[in-house]
C-alpha cells in the first residue's frame, strides 16, 4: 500500500471558509449558551437537584465514547495487522482526537465552576473513577497524537505498531472507565451493573465506526476524493456486527434487570411506563438505532453509499437516544430509599424526576459536534490526513498481500 498518498485537503476551495464559518457560528452559539448558563447559574437549564446530568452529558458521553471507538478503528491496522485499513488510520486518529475534544469541551463548560478547570487538573482523588477518566482522557490526546505522528513521520513508521498497540489498550481501559462512571453508581437502580463497562466498549465500536464512516464519506464527497468501495463495504459490514453486538448487550442488561426483583421497578419504568424514556428506548434506540440500520446495511440497498451514510446517521440518532435513556432516564427513576413505602416530600422524593432540556443545553451539546467537525476540517486542510485517492485496486492489492502472507 505504499502508493497511497496523503495530501492536505485543499480541494474544498471557498466552501471551506463557508463551512468553517457556519461551524464557528454554531460553536459561538454553544459558547454563549455556556456563558449564559454560568452567568445565571444552572437554574436556567432543565437540570435540577433530581436530574443533575442532562443533555450536555448525553452529548458529551456520546462524543467521548465515539472518540474511543474511532481510535479503536485507527488501531485495527496496527494491532490486528489489517493492512487494508491502514490508509484510514491517521484520519481515524484525528477524528478521535477531535470528538474527544468536543466532548470534553461540553463537559468542562457544563461544570458548575468551569473556571476551576485548573483544580480538576491539579487535584486528584485517585479512588474516583472520574479521576481515572480525566487522566485517561489526557493520555488519550497524547497517545492518539503520538500515534498519528508515528504514522506520518517516515522515520517513526516502525514504531506505529507498538504505539498502535498501546493506543488500543488505552482506549479499552478508557471506555471501561467511562462505562464504569455509571456502572459504579450503587445509589441508582438503573446503573450499578458491571455490564456497563463492556457494553460501553461495544457501543464505542458501533458509534465510532458509524461516525468515522460518515466523516470519511463527507470529506471524500466534499473534496471529490475517491474512497474505495471495497473498504467502505468492509467498514459497513463491521458496523453491522457492532450494532448487533450492542443489541445483544442491552438485551442482556435489561433481561437481567427484569429478573432481579430490586431492579424490576426501573426496568418497568424505562421499558414501559417512562413516557419519553420509553419512547426513546423503543423508537430511538431499538428501531432507529438498531433495526433500521441493520436492515439498511444488510438489505439489498446496502451497496449504495447514500444508504450506508443514512444507516450511520441512524446509528448516531439511536446512540444519542440511548445515552439519553441511560443518563437522564436512569436519574429520572426515583431512588429507593424506603422500600415498601409510598414516599412524598418537598424534595421530589418518590417522584419521577422531571427534566425538560433548554435550548442552551442543546446548543452547548451541538457545539461539541461543531468543535469536532471544525477541528477535523481545519487539520485535514493543513496536514496530510486524508488519502488523496483510495481506489479499489489499492485495497485489493493489500488484501492479496495479506492473503499470500497468511497462506
Amino acid at each position, binding site marked *: 500500500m505504499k502508493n497511497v498518498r496523503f495530501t492536505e485537503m485543499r480541494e474544498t476551495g471557498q466552501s471551506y471558509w463557508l463551512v468553517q464559518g457556519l461551524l464557528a457560528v454554531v460553536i459561538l452559539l454553544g459558547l454563549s449558551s455556556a456563558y449564559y448558563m*454560568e452567568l*445565571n*447559574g*444552572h*437554574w436556567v437549564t432543565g437540570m*435540577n*437537584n*433530581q436530574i*443533575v*446530568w442532562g443533555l450536555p452529558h448525553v452529548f458529551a458521553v456520546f462524543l467521548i465514547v465515539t472518540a474511543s471507538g474511532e481510535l479503536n478503528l485507527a488501531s485495527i491496522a496496527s494491532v490486528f495487522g489489517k493492512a487494508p485499513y491502514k490508509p484510514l488510520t491517521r484520519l481515524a486518529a484525528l477524528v478521535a482526537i477531535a470528538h474527544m475534544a468536543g466532548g470534553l469541551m461540553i*463537559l468542562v463548560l457544563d*461544570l*458548575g*465552576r*468551569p473556571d*476551576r*478547570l485548573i*483544580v*480538576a487538573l491539579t*487535584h*486528584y*482523588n485517585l*479512588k*474516583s*473513577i*472520574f*479521576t481515572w477518566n*480525566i487522566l485517561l482522557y489526557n493520555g488519550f490526546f497524547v497517545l492518539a497524537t503520538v500515534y498519528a505522528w508515528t504514522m506520518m513521520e517516515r522515520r517513526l513508521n516502525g514504531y506505529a505498531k507498538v504505539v498502535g498497540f498501546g493506543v488500543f489498550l488505552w482506549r479499552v481501559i478508557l471506555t471501561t472507565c467511562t462505562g464504569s*462512571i455509571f456502572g*459504579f*453508581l*450503587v*445509589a*441508582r437502580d438503573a446503573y450499578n451493573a458491571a455490564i456497563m463497562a463492556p457494553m460501553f466498549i461495544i457501543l464505542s465500536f458501533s458509534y465510532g465506526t458509524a461516525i468515522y464512516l460518515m466523516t470519511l464519506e463527507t470529506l471524500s464527497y466534499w473534496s471529490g476524493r475517491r474512497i474505495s468501495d471495497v473498504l467502505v463495504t468492509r467498514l459497513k459490514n463491521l458496523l453491522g456486527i457492532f450494532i448487533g453486538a450492542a443489541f445483544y448487550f442491552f438485551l442482556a442488561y435489561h433481561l437481567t434487570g427484569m429478573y432481579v426483583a430490586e431492579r424490576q421497578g426501573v426496568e418497568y419504568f424505562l421499558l414501559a411506563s417512562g413516557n419519553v424514556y420509553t419512547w426513546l428506548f423503543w423508537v430511538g434506540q431499538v428501531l432507529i438505532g438498531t433495526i433500521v440500520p441493520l436492515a439498511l446495511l444488510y438489505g439489498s440497498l446496502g451497496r449504495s453509499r447514500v444508504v450506508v451514510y443514512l444507516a450511520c446517521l441512524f446509528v448516531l440518532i439511536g446512540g444519542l437516544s440511548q445515552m439519553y435513556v441511560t443518563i437522564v432516564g436512569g*436519574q429520572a427513576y426515583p*431512588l*429507593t*430509599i*424506603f422500600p*415498601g*413505602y*409510598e*414516599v*412524598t*416530600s*418537598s*424534595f*421530589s*422524593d418518590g417522584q419521577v424526576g*422531571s427534566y425538560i432540556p433548554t435550548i442552551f443545553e442543546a446548543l452547548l451539546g451541538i457545539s461539541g459536534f461543531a468543535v469536532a467537525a471544525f477541528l477535523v476540517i481545519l487539520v485535514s486542510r493543513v496536514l496530510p490526513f486524508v488519502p488523496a485517492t483510495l481506489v479499489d485496486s489499492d485495497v485489493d492489492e493489500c488484501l492479496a498481500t495479506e492473503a499470500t502472507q497468511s497462506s
Partner: protein
Amino acid sequence: MSNESTDQGRRGFLGTATATAVGLAAIPGLSLVALARSPDLAVDNRSRWGLLIDTSKCLTECTACTTACASENGLVSHGRPATDAQWLRKVQLKDKATGRTLSLPVGCQHCEKPPCVDVCPTGASFRRADGIVLVDKHICIGCRYCMMACPYKARSFVHEETHNQKANAPRGKGTVEACTLCVPRLDAGRLPACVEACQQEGHQAMIFGDLQDPNSAIAKRLAAVPTHQLREALNLNTGVRYQGV
C-alpha cells in the same frame, strides 16, 4: 499524648452537654456556653458524630428542624422547588402494606464509606476525621458526580448566585453542598441547628452525640432500642440512624 486530657474532657463535655440538653430541652442554649475543643487543635477520629431520629416523636406537620437548617445555613428558596437547595427535608412515608404513615427528616447520612467521597474527582467531597462528610467548596468544580452517587439524594447543587450568606455557612453558585451537621457550631461546642430546634419544640425526636462514646446518650439509645440505617444493604455505616422505620 499531651492533649489527651483535653480531648477526653471535650468528649466528656459534649456527651454530657447533649444528655443535659436532651433532658432540659426547654432551656435553649444550655449546651452553648461551656468550653469547646481548643480552636487550634485538629479534629481526630476518637469521636464520630451521629444523629438518631426517633420517628415516633417526629410529627408530620412539624418542620422545625428543616426551617432551622435553612435559616442557620442561609438556604433561601427562590420559589423553584426543583433547584432550591435543601440540606434537610421532611419525608412523609406511608407503608404500602399497612397504611401506617410516618414522617422523618432526611439529609446527609454521614456515611462511614460515603460514595460521594469515593467518586469526587478532585477530593472536594471528603470525610472529616470525626465522621462528618463535607464538601470543600474551594476545590469543588461542580461536576455533580457526587449527586449521582449519593444513595440518599442528600446533596444540592447551588443553582443560582448567592447573597447574604451566613458567616458560618459559606455557599456559592456552581458548587455542591449538603448537611454539614452545622460543623462550625459543633466545633464551637454547640448542637446542630436542627437538633436544637427539635429540642426547643419539645419533640426530642433527634439525639445528637458521639457514636463511639459508650456513655453518650445516642450510644446508649442505639444499644437499647432497634434502629436502622437507610438503605442498610449498601453497608455504608451511616452516621444518621432512624428509630421506628
